[in-house]
């Protein structure tokens, strides 16, 4: 447990020293979301219908953006090697890095989403469900993304390849997240969508750290 906290504190300390990286992810998210009304036109009822989808796709893309750095800098300066030699379980250490990545890239998106939701004239309940969905969903993106980041460690076209590997695996999260917002908009119950999202989150929490640890051992050979 101590290792988990240590790694999270370490990564957050590093992120704070490079505050710019945190902001670029957030600015990318805001920019992508703001592009859609320009592309689709300002009619409010159209925008309201596609708001959840736009916000979710933008969240997906911006978390892909920052995944590349999850292991890359540690790989280049040799700290990742030392982590592989840690006497505690590597999965716990990787879970720490995932949580730190989520706090740096996932959480800001969740906090920024309501502001952008207003741009799309979303109702208050829809905004509420969107945030709950993002809170459950963005950690899954970080965790599945970590597997991709570990597999594509040190490869040439790493960023694009990472997205090609990870995005298909994130589709269920996108479907359940947007489905929840649509359900509340049509007055149906959102329990099923959010519970499915929660189930995928638990599944990811259990499996992805171990899989990422194996991927790291394979990539570091």
């Amino acid at each position, binding site marked *: 447990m*101590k*290792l988990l906290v*240590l*790694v999270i504190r*370490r990564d957050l*300390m*590093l992120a704070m*020293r*490079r505050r710019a990286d945190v902001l670029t992810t957030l600015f990318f998210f805001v920019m992508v979301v703001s592009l859609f009304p320009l592309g689709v036109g300002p009619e409010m009822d159209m925008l309201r219908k596609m708001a959840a989808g736009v916000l979710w796709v933008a969240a997906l893309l911006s978390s892909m953006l920052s995944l590349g750095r999850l292991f890359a*800098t540690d790989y*280049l*300066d*040799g*700290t990742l*090697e*030392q*982590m*592989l*030699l*840690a*006497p*505690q*379980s590597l999965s716990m*250490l990787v879970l720490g890095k995932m949580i730190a990545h989520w706090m740096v890239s996932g959480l800001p998106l969740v906090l920024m989403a309501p502001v952008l939701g207003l741009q799309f004239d979303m109702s208050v309940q829809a905004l509420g469900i969107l945030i709950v969905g993002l809170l459950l969903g963005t950690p899954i993106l970080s965790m599945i993304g970590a597997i991709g980041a570990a597999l594509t460690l040190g490869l040439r076209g790493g960023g694009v390849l990472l997205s090609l590997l990870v995005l298909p695996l994130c589709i269920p999260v996108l479907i359940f997240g947007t489905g929840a917002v649509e359900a509340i908009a049509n007055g149906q119950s959102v329990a099923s969508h959010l519970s499915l999202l929660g189930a995928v989150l638990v599944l990811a929490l259990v499996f992805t750290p171990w899989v990422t640890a194996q991927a790291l051992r394979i990539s*570091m*050979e």
Partner: protein
Amino acid sequence: MLEVTKLACSRGDHRLFSGLSFRLEPGQILQVDGANGSGKTSLLRALCGFLMPDEGEISWGGISTAKMEEEFYAKILYLGHLNAIKDDLNALENLRIAAGISGCLLDEQQAVSALQRMGLRGRERLPTKVLSQGQRRRVALARLLVNQAKLWILDEPLTALDVGAVHLIETLLMEHLARQGMVIFTTHQPLQVPGLRTLSLS
């Protein structure tokens, strides 16, 4: 006690060495030498479990290190070509985090005294990116002072070090051996330590 029997490693489809056997007892120091590309680094990385050997067995106290995994990692300290320090953090933070990850929690005072012994007095709180190459190597080597690993695996520890630092490393090695520790290392600069055995790869 580390024992290696009939080890064979290759990089890609090029065989580096094969049939390599040696034993390292507590209190012994072994230098691995050979031309560039003869597989010195690969041998050290194979010992750490980074590299899967094609054939052969690596055992610690009779048990295969592949099976021990985390237990074996607690026994070793590996220092590769890379310094394993983060440029954005200062020397103190780097040392404490590195020690924490390798399992021994370090308070500020212990870390500062270790860094000072490595000749970094007054530079403990500077971000390591402003330090010189030699000073950064000293920060990396400071980990030797703060851990309980029995086996040190050092890949060219003396790179970028000045004469003073080399003597300091030699005394550290001798202290470690006196505590029944073991060392296996590669180097391109001469290193005077009593009881030094060499293992040639080429």
